């Protein structure tokens, strides 16, 4: 049964936004009882039916890599984290709806994951500023998820949601807002569940099928210390 194909999706975001709860909810359909600090990376697996309900239905494993830590951390931590960013097929960006800074940090998170070639030297060329051009040719599908929806007052809800809509547009991504302690947000058939399913389908498609229907073999591993001149451009 472990012979099904797999895709790798990163779950990124600041500490304390609820990534572990989210991953637990997605993979085990249960609410996480005692969330605790994530050290390093924790992985969970979700079984997903690609193109459910159609004759082309196929089951895939989706690995959700929940990488802990803060975006402004020590460069030694960043270098270690970079090891997990190899051959990523999709990224889920998680932020806390009650905390503005966590949404702003998403730009830095996405840059860190997408520009992973530059991480070993510890210097990001754009020094963290958001540069739309870098995302123009980005092929990795993104999804933005906002957590702790229940902790926002009714009055401020609209304002927060509009701000988030702009954010998602910047990333050219879908957005989902939910509360990780309440499984009904992802109940089968709800719009959130449909968005999620579409995202996973998109990830699988990009990985295994390109537009003209051929299958792509596995991506080359990026070279690190051997021969600094050999820079691997992803998706080429």
């Amino acid at each position, binding site marked *: *049964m*472990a012979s*099904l194909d797999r895709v790798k999706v990163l779950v990124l975001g*600041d*500490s*304390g936004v609820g990534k572990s709860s989210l991953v637990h909810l997605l*993979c085990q*359909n*249960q609410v996480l009882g005692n969330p605790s*600090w994530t*050290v*390093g*990376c*924790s*992985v*969970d*697996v*979700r*079984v997903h039916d690609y193109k459910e309900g159609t004759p082309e239905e196929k089951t895939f*494993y989706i*690995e959700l890599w929940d990488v802990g830590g*803060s*975006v*402004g951390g*020590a*460069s*030694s*931590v960043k*270098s*270690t984290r970079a*090891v*997990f960013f190899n051959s990523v097929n999709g990224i889920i960006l998680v932020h*806390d709806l009650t*905390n*503005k*800074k966590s949404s702003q*940090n998403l730009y830095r998170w996405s840059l860190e994951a997408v520009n992973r070639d530059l991480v070993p030297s510890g210097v990001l060329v754009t020094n963290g500023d958001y540069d739309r051009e870098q995302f123009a040719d980005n092929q990795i599908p993104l999804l933005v998820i906002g957590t702790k929806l229940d902790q926002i007052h009714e009055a401020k809800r609209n304002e927060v949601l509009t701000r988030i809509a702009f954010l998602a547009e910047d990333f050219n991504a879908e957005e989902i807002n939910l509360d990780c302690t309440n499984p009904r947000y992802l109940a089968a058939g709800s719009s959130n569940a449909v968005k999620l399913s579409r995202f996973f389908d998109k990830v699988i498609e990009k990985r295994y099928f390109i537009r003209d229907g051929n299958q792509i073999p596995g991506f080359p591993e990026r070279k*690190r*210390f051997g021969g600094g001149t050999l820079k691997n451009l992803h998706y080429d």
Partner: protein
Amino acid sequence: MVFFFGFGWLFFMRQLFKDYEVRQYVVQVIFSVTFAFSCTMFELIIFEILGVLSSSSRYFHWKLNLCVILLILVFMVPFYIGYFIVSTIRLLHRQRLLFSCGLWLTFMYFFWKLGDPFPILSPKHGILSIEQLISRVGVIGVTLMALLSGFGAVNCPYTYMSYFLRNVTDTDILVLERRLLQTMDMIISKKKRIAMARRNLFQKGDVNNKPSGFWGMIKSVTTSAPGSENLTLIQQEVDALEELSRQLFLETVDLYATKERIEYSKTFKGKYFNFLGYFFSIYCVWKIFMATINIVFDRVGKTDPVTRGIEITVNYLGIQFDVKFWSQHISFILVGIIIVTSIRGLLITLTKFFYAISSSKSSNVIVLLLAQIMGMYFVSSVLLIRMSMPLEYRTIITEVLGELQFNFYHRWFDVIFLVSALSSILFLYLAHKQAPEKHMTP
């Protein structure tokens, strides 16, 4: 004084709360106020030496400052700490105020009890006098200072000197990373089996969505395929592997940090700091030595380094110069340096500590704790600075702080300093020994 307040505010915003949102402005205000008053104390010492302002007005300012600081340290900050701790526990949300008052009362009780075993009270004073409060705050603060300086005195040469740096090569890091990724792969494959087994269970026609609780699990064990019996076994293996992956991750971070330090030490700045490190280590060793002598020979220094230095130069080297004039300036410079370095050191340590342990939920509590520690630290450093000042300037501190037995404090500081230095030497030695062994194993 407003300047200090502004500085404290800025520091708070820039350094400590870079990644979080400031929800309650009360916290920020308290922190800045504590900082401002602590700095004013030092400012007053400097004024004392320089002879600015008249003596009586200085005295008045001292008293005022002390009262305010003590008020903040003993009343306000603990109360707010209790309040915030209680707010984070969801159950007690309703009766917040009640519980925080309760916590504060327990704090006061322990605080009072602290004074009993120490020979610091003279029966002349009443319960709520300044001397009582200062004595207790002083005890806690001195302990803290001694612990920090003991650890710092040992850690400083260890960090600065490249002699202690272990040799880390790129292959070491690569090997460790490969192990980490292999562990992650193993975790993934096991989790896949669990997920697939659970999915089959689900599809086999369980009416309920998930096995709810104890009875559900027993039911699923008896009615389904034998494969599910292995699930708990696999789950245990997964837990063990996850623990391993965490350890590997931390080790890799460590290796990267060491590699960076090696590279840094090869640059100019690195060499400069290395050189400083040798000086520091000599100074630290000397301090430890002095502390031992103080305890062993049971003496507390009567004269301060400045006067003693001048005496030595006058007696042995035969150089005549105006003692009064020079002693004032030199002691001013010395005290100034001590103050600045200790403030800077404290702020840096606090920042590092804050980054290491804070999260968005508990950041308020931690900032308040830091403010408390900072206040106590400053108060007790005023106590101890008395040691380094010439006799004329000591009078005002003695006057203001009442009849505390300063000798006791110095002795206590020396003892704790020695204990903390020795234990940190032991600790670092063990850590150093353990690390190379871990990398030897294939």
